[in-house]
């Protein structure tokens, strides 16, 4: 057997008191798709970053083609043919899509001007392959998070790498875009490119990966042939025990209507009407750019409402700002935890209590003891794994950052929750915890709207599912009757497929 293309031997890395990696072993064969899996905080991103030169290991060796390699910087890695798609999508928001691709890109012909025309010509094929349907001249900051993910993919493709590390590349992609990525992965593989694939989505692992290396607490547990194992086995390796997948909860009787939208129209939405009941989990499905996040933005006072009406607990609601919406009892968990959610330099505890400080103060002074005691149960409920509550959010793994954000809204405890992809980047075990929490919210009489890129999860969690396409509501399904296929069909259709209410002639 040929020498592995990329190999990590006995790699260790500590961040302060936390051992992110302990003698981790990893080896990538030429032309294989190799999954890297493990719970939140297991060290997957750290290993990927070490291989890509953006984090320096404390100990251990990296070998390329069997030869010891010095990868001291991302540029070194690029020179050695290693590309990476970071989990946290570090793009330059004030540069255009094209500029984001060519900046620091060794494959962009040197000496060529970065004139928009040259950049366009260079980027077009990669944008097409990645399926990002926007000009190369658009500002990266104006892309949705799903589109940013596609941009990161295009950038990695453009580097002509021999090995591409993909850290949760589909965490914000809806099925069609993910599907395209799988096609792309197969193509790359045929060309002999190796891929490291980090994901929490089991079905993806089984569809695209050849082998899988499981990390637990920074140690390599085992590397397995994917064809010779099953999801249960992999999950057992990941968490070290058997995992109970929570069954779909029995149907609760719905309460009164808590939120009602009628003919809601904003910049993106067109004439959207729905009702949300207490004790109901209402799913929102749609492709990237279908308006599912904009629905939250309209309800939360972020987008101006152009026409239509919203009623909250029976009284009209015209939220002028998120602050206003929160005061009225709507909470929105934003899709992009880095841009819209967390204060990265502030501690876990400060991040969690930010929206509820008014309840934890006396004469403007924060009551720290109350802060800690309020957070305790939520931290346990979420199984938050962090060095300490005083450590900055930036030092947490992606999934645990997501949990901190969720903690903020659980503490606020509004009447209506709009959860925009709350399980983004969350491991299989923790995902069950979050779904249990959502069930609990519904049982407590809250109205919950749940956006997710993962249809199986919507089907499991929701009572009803709204499907949006191009800003319009195209269908409303009872979750018991819907299937992934019917939802996909409605999500890709552009006309209203909803049965028109029968109008009785007076």
């Amino acid at each position, binding site marked *: 057997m040929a020498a592995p293309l990329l190999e990590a031997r006995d790699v260790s890395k500590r961040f302060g008191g936390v051992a992110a990696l302990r003698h981790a072993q990893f080896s990538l064969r030429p032309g294989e798709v190799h999954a890297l899996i493990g719970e939140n905080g297991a060290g997957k991103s750290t290993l990927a970053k070490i291989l890509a030169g953006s984090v320096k290991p404390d100990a251990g060796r990296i070998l390329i083609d069997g030869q010891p390699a010095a990868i001291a910087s991302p540029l070194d890695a690029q020179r050695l043919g290693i590309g990476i798609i970071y989990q946290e999508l570090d793009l330059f928001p004030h540069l255009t899509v094209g500029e984001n691709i060519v900046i620091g890109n060794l494959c962009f012909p040197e000496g060529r001007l970065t004139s928009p025309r040259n950049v366009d010509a260079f980027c077009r094929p990669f944008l097409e392959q990645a399926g990002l349907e926007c000009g190369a001249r658009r500002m990266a900051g104006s892309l949705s998070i799903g589109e940013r993910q596609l941009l990161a993919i295009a950038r990695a493709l453009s580097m002509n790498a021999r090995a591409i590390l993909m850290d949760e590349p589909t965490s914000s992609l809806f099925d069609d875009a993910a599907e395209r990525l799988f096609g792309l992965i197969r193509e790359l593989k045929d060309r002999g490119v190796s891929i490291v694939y980090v994901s929490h989505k089991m079905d993806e692992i089984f569809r695209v990966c050849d082998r899988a290396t499981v990390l637990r607490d920074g140690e390599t547990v085992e590397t397995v042939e994917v064809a010779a194992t099953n999801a249960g086995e992999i999950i057992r390796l990941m968490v070290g025990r058997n995992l109970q997948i929570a069954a779909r909860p029995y149907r609760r009787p719905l309460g009164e209507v808590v939120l009602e939208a009628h003919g809601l129209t904003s910049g993106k939405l067109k004439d959207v009407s729905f009702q949300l009941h207490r004790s109901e989990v209402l799913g929102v499905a749609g492709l990237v750019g279908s308006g599912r996040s904009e629905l939250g933005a309209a309800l*939360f006072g972020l987008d101006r409402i152009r026409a239509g009406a919203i009623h909250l607990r029976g009284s009209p609601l015209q939220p002028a700002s*998120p602050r206003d919406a929160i005061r009225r009892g709507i909470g929105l968990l934003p899709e992009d935890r880095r841009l*819209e959610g967390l204060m*990265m330099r502030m501690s876990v505890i400060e991040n969690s209590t930010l929206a509820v*400080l008014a309840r934890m103060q006396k004469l403007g*002074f924060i009551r720290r003891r109350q802060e800690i005691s309020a957070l305790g149960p939520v931290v346990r409920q979420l199984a938050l794994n962090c060095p300490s509550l005083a450590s900055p959010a930036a030092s947490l793994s992606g999934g645990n950052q997501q949990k901190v954000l969720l903690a903020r809204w659980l503490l606020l405890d509004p009447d209506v929750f709009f959860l925009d992809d709350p399980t983004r980047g969350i491991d299989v075990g923790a995902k069950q915890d979050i779904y249990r929490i959502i069930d609990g919210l519904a049982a407590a009489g809250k109205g919950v709207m749940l956006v997710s890129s993962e249809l199986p999860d919507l089907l499991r969690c929701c009572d009803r599912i709204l499907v949006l396409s191009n800003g319009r509501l195209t269908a409303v399904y009872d979750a018991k009757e819907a299937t992934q296929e019917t939802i996909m069909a409605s999500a890709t259709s552009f006309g209203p497929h909803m049965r028109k209410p029968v109008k009785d002639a007076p």
Partner: protein
Amino acid sequence: MLDLLRRAQSLAALSGILVLAILISPVASDGSRIFLQPGNLTDILRQISLIGIIALAMTFVILTGGIDLSVGSLLAISTTLTAMALTRAWPHASYTSHILRAILASHILRAILAAVAVSTLAGAVNGAVISALRIQPFIVTLASMIGVRGLAKWLSSNENIDIGFGRDVAAEFAAVFRQKAIVIGSYACAAALFWILLARTVFGRHVRAIGDNEKAAEYAGLPIRGTKIWVYSLSGLLSGFAGVLYAAENHQGNPNAGVAYELDAIAAVVIGGTPLTGGKGSISGTIVGTLIMGVLTNMLRLKNVDSNVEMMIKAVIIVLAVAVQGRDSDK
């Protein structure tokens, strides 16, 4: 952890400079080191007090990711107004009896309040324009730095308003407010208050959150506009108060006072570990930063170093301090 390290760094820098200052200090005739004489040490504290006070509020401004270039002009308008109120409104009265002294105190108090109120208001306007019109703080405060300076010069017809040494209100005011104990005490009180404000209150938490990630702060429903208006008002308030102390110390209201103070204040904040991008920093850091600048100046002056050379040395110190902090602040 990182926080501790960084604070330890600037403390280490301060101790280093202190040791150096002691070592190279000239020796007095009785064999003691002049740098260590109580008179000299309190002189240092008095000299840094004005910039120190301004730097406290500047820390808040920079924490929100903003900047306040107008502090020097705000100091000038306040110092001018203080002197004008004391010399023009109550010019020649001299006070001796107890009752009259009470009247005197109330005159002085009103003059101070008026001056500080005007600069606070100007700060509030800065904040309101920045948050309502969404113009960059640099531009807005640059404009008010120019405009307010103009106002101060116009009000005083571009003349210094001298406070005499007689027995009138103005002179009494100066006699009280130029005492070392009052100046240093004011700085100490302001520092304590602002430390508590940042570390213990909801307002302080909001300030840091907005600087760390303003968009996320909006999503979390924080009062962004209100917080910014308060922050710039506080900057006006402290600059105004520094202006009052300036009038007493220099025995005059000088519309040209405080030029380039904003730069010294910003330098103190930055040396103290608050990056200009905001989100991270502390009042204790700013105090250490202010002390570093003060001790350095004193040390060089005691050695009779040319003031131009002094500026060059300070320039190096600023860059060094930030370079050292910059390294561990990225990831």
